[in-house]
């Protein structure tokens, strides 16, 4: 199948780009491994204008429905290869062995959860170690859990877990939590939550499942903390595979460098959302949407110009 634009990634950036592209009558397709991207996991979003409080899953479902209402097809699949054809188009191959052709590409594949890189982390994943509070919180009703991290995603995980668990420790390597002050205020006044500052987790202990964690310095006289579950919220990193394959220029932290129009260093390839260094590296739903919209408009202009050139020949 041949498209003017293929959007890789079905989170807020990709879906917004599709909405704009469809309204510009740019024939587009969205291919994503995960509908909604990381936002799907956010149990509560309170800073998206027009939505005072919304589940990430619900917000992104609305975005998907909006995009689909304009006729776009959203394919759940993984891109495993991108090649250039003789006539300078992109050929995209998916894990399910499907092929799609596009004039332009928008990369909006977002980021992945960072792991702790501790011994036995994989062994305990699913047995006490989790990377998704929204998915797994309910298995810790009336239990004691810890959250590692101190930014918005960790703060909201802590608050959500405090609604379900008996006790929540939040362990952070710095001396102050970061992010929205409203979340931090709620954490500090919640009697179920204890924040442990200037501390990191050194190791994970347990036989079949996680039973305790060892801190790099004592907390209330003890270096070990007995918990039932550990939620890792220490940030994210961009997915490198396609960036390398497409030879896209990145910054030191591997985020794609884009210009004001969300164009990458490669012709006919744009990028938007958490995977870029745009929007002052402020990775939010609204900035992802904004980047998606800017990219779509730039792609529309690019395709228009191309058409005009072709017509004049």
């Amino acid at each position, binding site marked *: 199948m041949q498209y003017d634009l293929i959007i890789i990634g079905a989170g807020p950036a990709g879906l917004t780009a599709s909405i704009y592209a469809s309204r510009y009558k740019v024939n587009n397709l969205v291919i994503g491994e*995960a509908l*909604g991207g990381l936002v799907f996991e956010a149990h509560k979003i309170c800073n998206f204008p027009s939505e005072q409080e919304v589940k990430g899953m619900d917000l992104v479902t609305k975005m998907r429905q909006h995009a689909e209402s304009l006729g776009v097809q959203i394919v759940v699949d993984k891109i495993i290869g991108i090649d250039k054809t003789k006539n300078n188009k992109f050929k995209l191959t998916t894990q399910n062995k499907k092929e799609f052709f596009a004039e332009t590409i928008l990369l909006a594949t977002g980021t992945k959860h960072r792991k702790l890189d501790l011994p036995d982390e994989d062994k305990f994943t*699913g047995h006490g170690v989790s990377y*998704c509070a929204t*998915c*797994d919180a309910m*298995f810790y009703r009336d239990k004691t859990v810890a959250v590692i991290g101190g930014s918005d995603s960790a703060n909201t995980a802590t608050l959500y877990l405090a609604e379900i668990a008996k006790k929540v420790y939040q362990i952070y390597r710095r001396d102050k939590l970061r992010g929205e002050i409203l979340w931090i205020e709620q954490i500090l006044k919640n009697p179920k939550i204890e924040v442990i500052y200037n501390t990191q987790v050194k190791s994970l202990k347990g036989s079949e499942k996680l039973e305790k964690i060892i801190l790099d310095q004592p907390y209330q006289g003890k270096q070990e903390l007995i918990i039932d*579950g550990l939620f890792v919220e220490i940030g994210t990193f961009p997915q490198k595979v396609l960036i390398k394959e497409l030879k896209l220029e990145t910054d030191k932290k591997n985020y794609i460098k884009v210009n004001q129009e969300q164009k990458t260093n490669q012709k006919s390839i744009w990028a938007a959302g958490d995977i870029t260094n745009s929007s002052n590296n402020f990775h939010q739903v609204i900035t992802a949407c904004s980047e998606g919209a800017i990219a779509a408009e730039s792609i529309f202009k690019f395709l228009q110009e191309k058409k005009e050139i072709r017509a004049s020949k």
Partner: protein
Amino acid sequence: MSKIIEVTNSNFELEVLKSDLPVLVDFWAPWCQPCLMMVPTLNELSEELDGKLKICKLNTEIPEHQQLAIQYQIQSIPNMKLFKNGQIVKEFIGLRPKDIFKSELESVI
């Protein structure tokens, strides 16, 4: 056509524990994105391994199912357990690519 069977508290014993075929049970919930991402893979495997393996899904969000989630020590989803003659013989946690998952399953069933 997917051959996945939705199991509940009431048919778990019959469909899973007393099954003649090995059974893969997917413990999932609607708010778990990785669980939803596994759906196409599980649908396809339910057809490709038809006759060799039965695939069932148990929605852990339903309050009556939570006792089963506790009994099988579910702490993270997606969590897929392979039962043979009523006993758990292997556990798969988190997202897995289809081809790898298929060969992992084929090596045990």
